[in-house]
């Protein structure tokens, strides 16, 4: 069937946008860059028989560490029909350049590599929303990882956000990657549940962030 224009402020478009942003945040985010949706400019939806629902989006994203740094993206989010176990397909095209994070990435990398004891922290942010400056990169890295979880676990009836980093433990590796084992709390907007997820993230200045494993913790309360 033909594509239908959607009001950007309304929920089907907003949920699809959250998936696209989560995907991009994972791809392009890291300890020195957090991507956030500034504006959903346009949204269209197409119902494809026997396949699923495809959303075509025009988004403007900003770098939370440099709000003047924005990029425009077009994204396609395809939710597969009737499938709860299959992640939506996402394709994104980014126009424009984001501010380089090379310096900050190198600094973070060397700082962590030279720690004598493996980094351990919890409750980022704390109850009052505080993030100590030296933990901000960890927060952003977790945010990037949660983008992966959002992308992989979203349906048209869910909207996931990172609520808090409950716990993080660095695991020293013999190769060049940094490894962080996170327990993150994800807030699902529609059911309002806040659920813990375990996620292991590898990161390297040249290779970016990769989620090596993740799963929801336990079966709920």
């Amino acid at each position, binding site marked *: 069937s033909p594509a239908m224009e959607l009001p950007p402020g309304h*929920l089907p478009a907003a949920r699809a946008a959250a998936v696209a942003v989560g995907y991009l945040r994972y791809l392009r985010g890291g300890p020195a860059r957090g991507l956030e949706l500034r504006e959903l400019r346009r949204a269209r939806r197409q119902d494809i028989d026997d396949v699923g629902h495809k959303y075509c989006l025009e988004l403007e994203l900003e770098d939370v560490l440099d709000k003047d740094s924005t990029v425009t993206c077009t994204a396609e989010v395809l939710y597969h029909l009737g499938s709860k176990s299959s992640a939506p397909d996402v394709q994104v095209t980014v126009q424009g350049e984001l501010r380089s994070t090379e310096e900050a990435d190198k600094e973070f990398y060397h700082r962590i590599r030279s720690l004598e004891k493996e980094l351990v922290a919890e409750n980022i942010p704390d109850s009052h*929303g505080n993030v100590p400056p030296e933990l901000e990169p960890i927060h952003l890295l977790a945010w990037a990882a949660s983008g992966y979880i959002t992308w992989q676990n979203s349906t048209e009836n869910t909207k996931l956000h990172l609520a808090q980093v409950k716990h993080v433990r660095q695991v020293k590796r013999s190769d060049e990657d940094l490894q962080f084992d996170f327990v993150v709390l994800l807030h699902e907007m529609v059911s309002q549940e806040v659920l813990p997820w375990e996620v292991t993230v590898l990161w390297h200045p040249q290779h970016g962030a990769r989620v090596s494993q993740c799963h929801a913790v336990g079966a709920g309360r």
Partner: protein
Amino acid sequence: RSREQTSSASSLLRLLLKTPIYCRHQVLRIKTKNEQEVKQLQLLESLEHLELDFWINPSAPALPVDVRIPAASVQSVKAFLESQGIEYSILIEDLQDILDKEKQEMDENAQRQRSSTFDFGAYHTLDDINAELDHLASEYSFVEKIQIGQSYEKRPLYVLKFSTGGSNRPAIWLDAGIHSREWVTQASALWIANKIASDYGTDASITSLLNKMDLFLLPVSNPDGFVYTHTSNRMWRKTRSKIPGSICVGVDPNRNWDAGFGGPGASNNPCSDSYHGPSANSEVEVKSVVDFIKNHGNFKAFLTLHSYSQLLMYPYGYKCTRPDDYAELESLGRAAASSIRSLYGTTFQVGTICKTIYQASGGSIDWSYDNGIKYSFAFELRDTGRYGFLLPASQIVPTAEETWLGLKKIMEHVRDKSS
């Protein structure tokens, strides 16, 4: 003894005795012209039965002598001085008067201190919030703290009533913190309360609003949940009521109202964060508000604060059809969102609950709207997910400031339509 020591010693003494012991005591300043006069004063000093208290002792002609004289001795001392031709003037007519004024000023200062030490840009405990409600009520004659009920765990539900007179004037309802983890809402409500109270009389809009209407503000709608977010689980949302037959605790208070109760968008699983509860109004936190508003009978607006997502919504949530007053509510919502944006550029999406966030039954503004309160709006405040519920305290005041502009826009419209 120095005057300061005497003054504070006497204040302390009076506090201890609780009697005005310096009533009609006078303090004289005596100007001696020569050594002879100084000697006369030193003679006076030696007369213990007069109980004179020299604040500045007689020592040299050039220096003034200050002396406190008990009421009984005033006449005789003055007679003596006059008979010796010694010049004097009255420094203090009645020492008790001065002390009384000083105490009053100290009390007022202490109260002002207490208010100016409440940091609106920080998150506070329930006790601190309640103390500030007391302070606002005591500082402003048109602000009253009333209790409309108590929570499941027996905590009082305190509402600030802003009323400059009249009898059961048309009223506006504003609540915050129905979902306890949404901390920026309780914090914003405190700032807004202080803003309204302190600007009445100087701000034209607030003044005309309160001259025509009453405002009722419930800053902590869910005190049990709020305490739980401080003591145990920062992410707690619901009430803390025990649910028969379940190990899980608490009901989503914004699924518990009698509006499409039990319909889509609420869970019947007690362990769910959107559990609607065993029946509509089963939660005392909800029932107390329902009863209060029904008994009052003259509410024109029902406004409720949530976080996060930056949304400004009107009914319905329990069904996806438009309310009868759709056009007016949409237009007013857009105007309010525009006001919000004017301050810091924060954008709010406007629409019905069902179209904007999700279908959700048993919500408060659906109930208020279906019960004749046309201007029913729900706000979702900052942010859009970067910090979510854990909004940094540094954003409390900016959030409150911009939210207030949106609320004001709505209230002004309600005021104009209600007169």
